[in-house]
């Protein structure tokens, strides 16, 4: 079988990031931003907002203070690539932040690191100390601090993260205003995923074309995938975007893959019969990197149950569709399984999940019903019987 999986090595490649920064600092803000826009880079946390555009919005704001935030609150089940990036190439993350600072006119940066990754703190602090010294040498005014999380999935949502940084409950804000207008402490803030910042640095190093030439029209470049579940090759892989799920399963499956959950607990479950036509990317199913494989020994009911239990606990609880909806989905499948509710109750729950998708306050609530819908659509019989 032809191997259509293309491995790439941009993220973990050791580069002379200081040289890249030195060069970039001599350019104009617009030049840097235009390269990022031109490359087609979209946010690697999952939502996929065009990074260059985000930077441009922040740059265009007038303010006495702006911030850069590195979102290292990697809480999506099945995702662990940011941890590895911060372990292996922290200096590239810091470099990406400085580049964003230069481009947007921010002199302060924060890394919001999830509490589960506290063990990374000593090495990160060491990297930051070294980085500050280097910035001083380059005569670039940019400081980076770390703020830690304390166990709350929803803080990965950018505005919830900022609330948490401000010492509050991590409850997502109403949008608009967007963070580029009013972010941390009400100041214009560009918040980017760990991986996105490293790609931005690599685009500054190589120019936009190398990145743009990879992937597809909608999904440029490569992406770091976190592969787990029933696979002999669990781990982290940087792959060119645009592959089909079939290609992916051929590479990583154990020969008995019945379903793949793309995008973590808030992502979509794809059954074997759809592997061929499913593209991994923004034109198909986007992912922050989480790829969980399940073989035929797994009960899809148990898997869905796990996901819903996760959301029932990790919803911030402020908005009705998400807080109560997640409970209803979980209790609902239990009731159908036990015969307390008829199988047709699943149809009511699917209507509810549509409401959750369109009426929840933030991305968490809007995506929480994804696994429910996709598992019900593909494996209805496993939920009922």
């Amino acid at each position: 079988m032809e191997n259509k999986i293309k491995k790439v090595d941009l993220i973990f490649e050791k580069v002379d990031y200081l040289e890249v920064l030195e060069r970039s600092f001599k350019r104009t803000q617009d030049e840097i931003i235009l390269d990022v826009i031109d490359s087609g880079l979209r946010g690697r946390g999952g939502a996929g907002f065009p990074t260059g555009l985000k930077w441009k919005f922040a740059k265009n704001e007038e303010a006495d203070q702006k911030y850069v935030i590195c979102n290292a609150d990697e809480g999506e089940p099945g995702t662990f690539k940011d941890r590895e990036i911060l372990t292996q190439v922290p200096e590239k993350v810091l470099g990406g932040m400085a580049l964003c600072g230069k481009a947007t006119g921010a002199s302060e940066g924060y890394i919001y690191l999830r509490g589960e990754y506290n063990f990374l703190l000593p090495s990160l602090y060491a990297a930051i100390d070294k980085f500050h010294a280097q910035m001083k040498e380059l005569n670039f005014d940019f400081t980076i601090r770390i703020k830690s999380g304390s166990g709350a999935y929803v803080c990965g949502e950018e505005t919830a993260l900022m609330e948490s940084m401000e010492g509050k409950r991590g409850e997502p804000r109403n949008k608009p205003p967007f963070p580029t207008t009013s972010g941390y402490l009400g100041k214009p803030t560009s918040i980017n995923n760990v991986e996105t910042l490293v790609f931005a640095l690599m685009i500054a190093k190589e120019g936009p074309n190398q990145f743009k030439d990879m992937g597809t029209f909608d999904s440029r470049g490569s992406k770091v995938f976190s592969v787990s579940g029933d696979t002999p090759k669990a781990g982290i892989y940087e792959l060119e975007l645009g592959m089909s799920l079939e290609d992916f399963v051929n590479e990583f499956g154990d020969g008995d893959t019945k379903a793949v959950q793309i995008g973590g607990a808030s992502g979509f479950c794809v059954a074997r019969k759809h592997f061929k036509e499913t593209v991994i990317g923004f034109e198909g199913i986007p992912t922050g990197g989480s790829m969980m494989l399940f073989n035929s020994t797994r009960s899809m009911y148990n898997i869905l149950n796990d996901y819903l239990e996760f959301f029932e606990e990790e919803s911030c609880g402020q908005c009705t569709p998400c807080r109560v909806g997640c409970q209803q989905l979980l209790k609902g499948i239990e009731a159908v399984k036990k015969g307390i509710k008829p199988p047709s109750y699943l149809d009511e729950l699917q209507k509810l999940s549509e409401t959750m998708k369109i009426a929840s306050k933030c991305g968490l609530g809007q995506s929480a019903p994804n696994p429910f819908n996709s598992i019900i659509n593909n494996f209805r019989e496993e939920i009922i019987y």
Partner: protein
Amino acid sequence: MSTYKVNLKVNNLNVSVDEGTTILDAARQLNFKIPTLCHHDDLCVAGNCRVCVVEQVGNRLLPAACATPVSEGMEVLTNSMKVRQARKNIIELLLSEHNADCTKCFKSGYCELQEMANEYRTGDHIFLDVRSKNEIDISSPSIEKDDSKCIRCQRCVRTCTELQAVSALAVTHKGKEMKISTFLDKPMNDVVCTNCGQCINRCPTASLVERNYIDQVFDAIYDPKKFVVVQTAPATRVAISEEFGLGPNRSTGKMVAALRRLGFDKVLDTDFTADLTIMEEGTELLTRLKEALVDGKEVALPMMTSCSPGWIKFQEHIFPDMLDNLSTCKSPQQMFGPLAKTYYAEKINKNPADMVVVSIMPCTAKKYEAERPEMRGSGYKDVDFVLTTRELGRMIHQAGIDFEKLEDEKYDSILGESTGAAVIFGATGGVMEAALRTAYEIVTGREVPFANLNIKPVRGMDGIKEAAVKIKDVKEEWSFLEGVELKIAIAHGLANAKELMNKIKSGEADYHFIEVMACPSGCIGGGGQPIPTNMEIRKKRAAAIYEEDEKMVLRKSHENPEVTEIYKSFLHKPLGHRSHDLLHTHYYPRKRY
């Protein structure tokens, strides 16, 4: 502010609104009502409950109308199929976590969720029951908290924080465990709650209601051995009409008539003791000023009013080092109680042990105040039961009295006579105005220099009001006040009070006399007043209060003949020995945290 206009379409109708307007308000301008729950005109935007979601053409998501500003060219549909399905679902979800035992609920008929559920005819409960199973917290003498009825709209939390700066209530936990609670989930009586009841006024369901004592009061009325007298606070008489769908209105006479029909033995007026408060408190202020200016004593100034029990408890918790600044006067309610069971009992030849004193108050903190151990000046519990305006409304409904058709009746005498100065106690600035009308005249022998006695600078809804009154050509015995500029300030709502206190503490501001009312707009906006509340309603209540004042024959407390009489025959003089025993009190520092 910008006057930049934004053009949009709501339900295919064009509308042009100011930049920054929300979709909700833009729709209101076209007379489209979008249902809301977490939204409240007095509070900041939350966007939590999501019942106000609307369809925005071209947007996959349904934005919350209350939290989304309009944008140029926006096309909004407030009642599309998508919106209806989502809204219905959301109401059903709220019902699935709500103890919808409506027939047993105190708020039935007044509940926003119930109204919405009826409107949308959700009917059969399609979702599973996810109610929290909890004990109702009845630890507080003022407020009952039932989490099983909570829909987590956070209106109470925003009230407690934004309007009152108390933050006794907070959102705690997350996910399905998320709830509205107190520090370490302690009972309401054990936390910094001031019992102001503003949370109750804004709770859309019955998760927060007053402790109600309707049955106990009826039991007393039906007990032939008990002589039950009732007193009514100034602010109730302009709001009780709202309980009968009549809007804020002067309805003193109808209220008196209703109380008599309910079977109270005597219908008396807290306004009488409001006048008395002015005599005591005015004298106290002048005494303090004399001690400071003439005797050079260390006196706590500015002196602060003490009529509002929520404010008193706030001060005890938050500024325990400033308790000496509070006037030692009891509130009018608590002056009435001991006088009823001593002076009045004697006059009508009743054994105070057989008397029951009931108050009708715009306030929930008064329930707590009546329970304070100090409030037993008569040798008995001075005030036995405190009912809110809402509870009175409920009693009138229960008794089948047609309020609207009642003929006006007058208060009984004695303890029923009052002046316009007393009735304005009900609005922010009113105590100050009443005090000035009397104090100025005592000191100068002339009326206050304001047209028709209306001291306009102390009126109105500004959070903190300041004024200065120059005292000139004083009577001889007050010569030490000649040329003094009396500096005063007024705050209503505890957030404003806190701001004012901090200014005083930091030395940034310097006053002689301060009026504080715990509730926004004063007692007319009290925690025991009819629901709903908003600025428009409170302004109407205030207007009714000032109208009531203007219609009174007597408008200065010192002209109240019953006041003159009680000093002549019983109290002898303000701040005298009997006053000290019956009408004054002291305060206790409490935990701030």
